[in-house]
């Protein structure tokens, strides 16, 4: 029988089967990747969304002058002698009075009722009073934080069963909290403090926020941007356009590629040895963190910049040189503008990588518990020299805490970090689309 085109021969069948199998492998690989991503995002969002909500108690607090301003002159310096311990009973009594006013009955003692209030609340009220001494003597309405356990009730974290086994709360407190919520005294609302407040100690997870970490990460990104971008772009332009092609430049090129593959913790050790031990910059400072991340990001920026420069067609260089432009004019007038989208994309990807980096920061002490907002500049510690922490380190920090309320905080911080990364990548894509030119 002669070969007919209408009959597929064995060889063609085999080739087609091979192609179909390859397509199936590819598709299943993508499905696995998407599933992994979906599981990851769902678990993070499930755990973390509640961090953006917080439970507050609306209290009318009488501020007795005889207790808060013993001298009687409304001078904040004198009033500061009353510590937060002095404010605790005032808040407790206010809540007990509120429970009575709502006509609720409970077996809880006044002390137990007082424990429904966050330990952070007295500090909040004290700060408000010291900032405005005229409040003393009046009855003022405050939105104060509920304790972590009470907060957990409204987020499903604390149940009757767990409360019965818990030394810090009791089923009665849960019932009272729910009654107060029905009365509108306790409500759960959006938690801006999560983005602005500093970290808080183990006993008050409800007050912990990302303020210091976001500020620290921002400072570090500024350091990285202002150091890594010019150094990286300048060295790539030199290597790509000006340097003679010889054994030395080959060696440099190989080493830059190797640097990109060095584990980040190695940069941490380097930073610890050089910036802290030798140059004696402050520990935990965004300056040192930024320098370490700069070293880590440089290879990424150099490699992507060189790729962008390489992708500019040589005919453009010829054209510029042909009309009598100098080498530098041809690079800066023609090559660099065409390579800019690639350079920007590489830089932003490098920054995003640096933003999420944790390991080197642990080594230079950014894992410390920091409650003070770091100033960008201070005369004692210089530019970006004040102790700070960073977003990914804050996540690491919170996952180490014992109180289960920190689980939602850690996941919330991860969501915040992911949103920042998403925004940066979106900007990178936008810039690439916007400035991409065709030739």
């Amino acid at each position: 029988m002669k070969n007919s085109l209408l009959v597929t021969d064995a060889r063609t069948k085999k080739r087609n089967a091979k192609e179909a199998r390859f397509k199936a492998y590819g598709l299943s690989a993508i499905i696995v990747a998407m599933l992994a991503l979906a599981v990851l995002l769902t678990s993070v969002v499930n755990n973390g969304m509640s961090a953006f909500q917080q439970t507050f108690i609306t209290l009318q607090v009488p501020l007795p002058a005889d207790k808060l301003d013993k001298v009687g002159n409304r001078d904040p310096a004198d009033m500061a002698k009353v510590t937060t311990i002095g404010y605790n009973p005032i808040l407790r009594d206010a809540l007990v009075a509120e429970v009575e006013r709502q006509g609720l009955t409970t077996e809880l003692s006044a002390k137990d009722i007082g424990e429904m209030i966050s330990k952070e609340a007295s500090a909040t009220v004290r700060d408000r009073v010291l900032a405005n001494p005229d409040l003393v003597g009046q009855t003022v309405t405050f939105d104060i934080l509920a304790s972590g356990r009470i907060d957990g009730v409204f987020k499903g974290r604390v149940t009757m069963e767990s409360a019965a086994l818990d030394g810090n709360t009791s089923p009665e407190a849960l019932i009272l909290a729910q009654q107060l919520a029905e009365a509108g005294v306790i409500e759960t609302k959006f938690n801006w403090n999560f983005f602005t407040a500093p970290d808080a100690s183990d006993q008050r997870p409800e007050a912990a926020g990302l303020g210091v970490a976001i500020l620290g990460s921002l400072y570090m990104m500024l350091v990285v941007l202002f150091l890594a971008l010019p150094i990286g772009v300048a060295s790539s332009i030199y290597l790509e356009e000006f340097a003679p092609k010889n054994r030395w430049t080959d060696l440099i090129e190989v080493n830059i590629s190797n640097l990109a593959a060095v584990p980040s913790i190695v940069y941490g050790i380097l930073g610890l040895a050089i910036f802290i031990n030798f140059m004696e910059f402050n520990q935990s400072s965004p300056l040192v963190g930024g320098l370490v991340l700069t070293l880590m990001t440089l290879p990424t920026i150099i490699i992507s910049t060189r790729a962008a420069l390489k992708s500019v067609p040589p005919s453009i260089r010829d054209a510029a040189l042909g009309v009598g432009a100098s080498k530098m004019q041809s690079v800066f007038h023609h090559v660099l503008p065409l390579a800019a989208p690639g350079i920007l994309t590489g830089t932003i990807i490098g920054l995003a990588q640096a933003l999420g980096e944790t390991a080197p920061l642990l080594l230079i002490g950014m894992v410390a518990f920091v409650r003070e907002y770091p100033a960008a500049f201070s005369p004692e510690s210089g530019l970006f020299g004040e102790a700070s922490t960073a977003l990914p380190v804050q996540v690491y920090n919170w996952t180490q805490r014992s109180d289960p309320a920190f689980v939602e905080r850690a996941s919330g911080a991860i969501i915040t970090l992911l949103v920042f990364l998403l925004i940066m990548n979106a900007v990178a894509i936008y810039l690439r689309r916007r400035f991409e030119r065709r030739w």
Partner: protein
Amino acid sequence: MEDMIHMDRAMSTQQDIKISARNVQVYYGDTHAIKDVSVEIDDKTVTAFIGPSGCGKSTFLRCINRMNDTIDIARVTGDIRIDNEDIYDPKVDPVQLRAKVGMVFQKPNPFPKSIYDNVAYGPKIHGLARNKADLDEIVEKSLRKAALWNEAKDRLDAPGTGLSGGQQQRLCIARAIATAPEVLLMDEPCSALDPIATAQVEELIDELRQSFSVVIVTHSMQQAARVSQKTAFFHLGNLVEYDDTDKIFTNPQDPRTESYISGRIG
């Protein structure tokens, strides 16, 4: 020195000699690409370099404005003079030389900028225009000379890369002549163009002869015959024959030239 100029003048019949190359050798690494080429190119003349691929005609062309300098492994020896000045003298800045010796490349390569900026770039970096009006005038003059003014005058702000292939090549010619060069080098300027665009560019080359010395590298013997007054035939890095175009095509002296133009080698 003076004597040499006089001698040169005496040797050339009616034309001045613009470019004079003596014993030029070019090496790419270990490859000997141009072997001992000596040639004298007249002013206000179109000179064509023909020859099979890889014969070194483009390489030699790129010696005249020192574009080979940009290739690391290229090495040029010998003596190339323009107006009797050695262009490989250490005192010569190639940037200044290239303003004097313009170049048009094989593939149209306009900058991805507006038509106006393409033409204005050269004059701008060489400081040829004192103000915007000057620059406008140079741009218009160059575009007119390149026979592109009528098509482009209404869209000077449009990107140069949006033009058709033939228009792009004429834009590149306009860009090259905007710096007021004395010599115009063209490296197969029509190889990427269709016959109509080719005819336009050839017509243009003939007009440019009034103002410049034009050296054109071409694969097409018909093109060489149409546009040039003098033709040089290169083969395997050697300059085989250099004479008036008519003579080369009707009465070649060297058997290799004859084989090439009759289509037996190439």
